[in-house]
């Protein structure tokens, strides 16, 4: 705080980054001057991460289920799933965004190559985050004691019913906090789609900065992201605390 007010460049930083009028202007935007609204841009971030989160939850679970399966028949799928997680956890997300965002349109295969930039961004984010979330799920599935599996099977439940009624409910309960953690980071990473040119909050702020020579739009975008991620962070903390107290109560 002291640095902010007393530093030699403090006043210019306050002018270029925290200028209330500029912050408001960048937030609402100005179509006449070709300025996109950072506020409206954020809506793009929101629908992107909502869509991605749903897809990631499903695809991640599928991959994890395949990877933890035992059946020899599924071996090729297991290898495929392992390859998928290795590749998409190993490539920097920015490169995945470039490859999908610039590659898929070039392929020229019908509808797949005629999507909006934001959609390509979602595909890239979903690929990368599915790989991460699959690992989270996998840890959860492996954390369920083998005795649970034996007990369910000895009751005559099929493998599928055992997964659905016994293993998954316990696994998902353990992985909710780390899962939410990944979602917080996914929410922020929607900003990377700006590199493809999608007009979301970060990109709108960038345009504002380039046009008006004022960076207050970036601060607005940062504050808006905080407004999204902080509640989710608090919620995650609460879940972890509740989980811990429940476990302690169970142990006593």
């Amino acid at each position, binding site marked *: 705080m002291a640095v902010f007010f007393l530093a030699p460049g403090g006043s210019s930083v306050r002018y270029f980054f925290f200028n209330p009028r500029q912050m408001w202007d960048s937030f609402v935007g100005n179509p006449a001057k070709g300025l996109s609204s950072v506020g409206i841009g954020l809506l793009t971030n929101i629908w992107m991460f909502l869509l991605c989160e749903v897809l990631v939850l499903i695809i991640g679970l599928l991959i994890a289920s395949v990877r933890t399966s035992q059946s020899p028949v599924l071996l090729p799928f297991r290898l495929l799933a392992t390859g998928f997680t290795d590749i998409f956890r190993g490539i920097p997300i920015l490169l995945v965004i470039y490859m999908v965002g610039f590659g898929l349109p070039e392929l020229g295969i019908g509808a797949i190559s005629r999507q909006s930039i934001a959609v390509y961004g979602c595909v890239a984010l979903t690929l990368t985050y599915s790989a991460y979330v699959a690992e989270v799920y996998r840890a959860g599935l492996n954390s369920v004691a083998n*005795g649970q599996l034996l*007990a369910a*099977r000895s*009751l005559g439940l099929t493998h599928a019913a055992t997964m659905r009624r016994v293993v998954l409910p316990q696994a998902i309960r353990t992985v909710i906090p780390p899962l939410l953690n990944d979602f917080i980071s996914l929410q922020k990473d929607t900003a990377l789609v700006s590199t493809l040119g999608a007009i979301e909050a970060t990109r709108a702020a960038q345009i504002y900065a380039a046009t008006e020579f004022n960076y207050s739009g970036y601060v607005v975008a940062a504050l808006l992201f905080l407004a999204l991620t902080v509640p989710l962070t608090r919620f995650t903390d609460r879940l972890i605390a509740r989980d811990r107290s429940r476990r302690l109560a169970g142990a006593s």
Partner: protein
Amino acid sequence: MSEVVLELDNVVKRFDDNEVLSGVSLRLHRHEVVCLIGASGSGKSTLLRCANLLETIDSGSISLFNQSLLDDRVDPDLVRRHIAMVFQTFNLFPHLSVLDNVLLGPVHALKRNKAEAREEAREMLSRIGLLERANEFPDRLSGGQQQRVAIARSLVMRPTLLLLDEVTSALDPTLVGEVLDLLRDLAHQGTTMLIATHEMNFARDVAHQIAYLDRGVLLEQGTPDELFTNPRHESTKNFLNRVR
């Protein structure tokens, strides 16, 4: 003697190079209680798991009412609905209430009507004296209570045969009695049971036959009187001396 329920013939089970069961043969008749005794690692648990098709065997045969269970056309899930198993560590489902633990098999394996199954589950819980805990989660119950619920969970399947794997070994000594009392009741009602146990007095009381396993070999079998008072093998004598 009444009809044969379970028959193991020359069962061999290996884990990698380690032969855990070396040609075990055993018969169990209807209403009969057989206790498996033997040191830890002698293969008691493995034998029970094989009987419930939770392990595949390397050679030999297992049959239920004279029908081989190793036939490819036999669905293991169907077999397990007739052979219930209770584990040393209870293995209750921690995310389900006591009642839902007991209901899982009848509703999701036997596909029985939920209302009827619930009625029956409540009756079973009242029989083991835990009806008032029906809506609690297993971790709120003592070990003895949990094991009684686990037994109730098996009984609502109306199994032809009940397998019990050292069901009192993980219990505090003060809680062993309530579980053994329940098993005594079941024995008196004519439940067919194969029980792996270290409780020699209990085995002597309830078993019609005692089978002694020694490093994967069923060394001798007989009535409690025969086996406890007149063991034929040196190894049996030594084992009995050590546990008594």
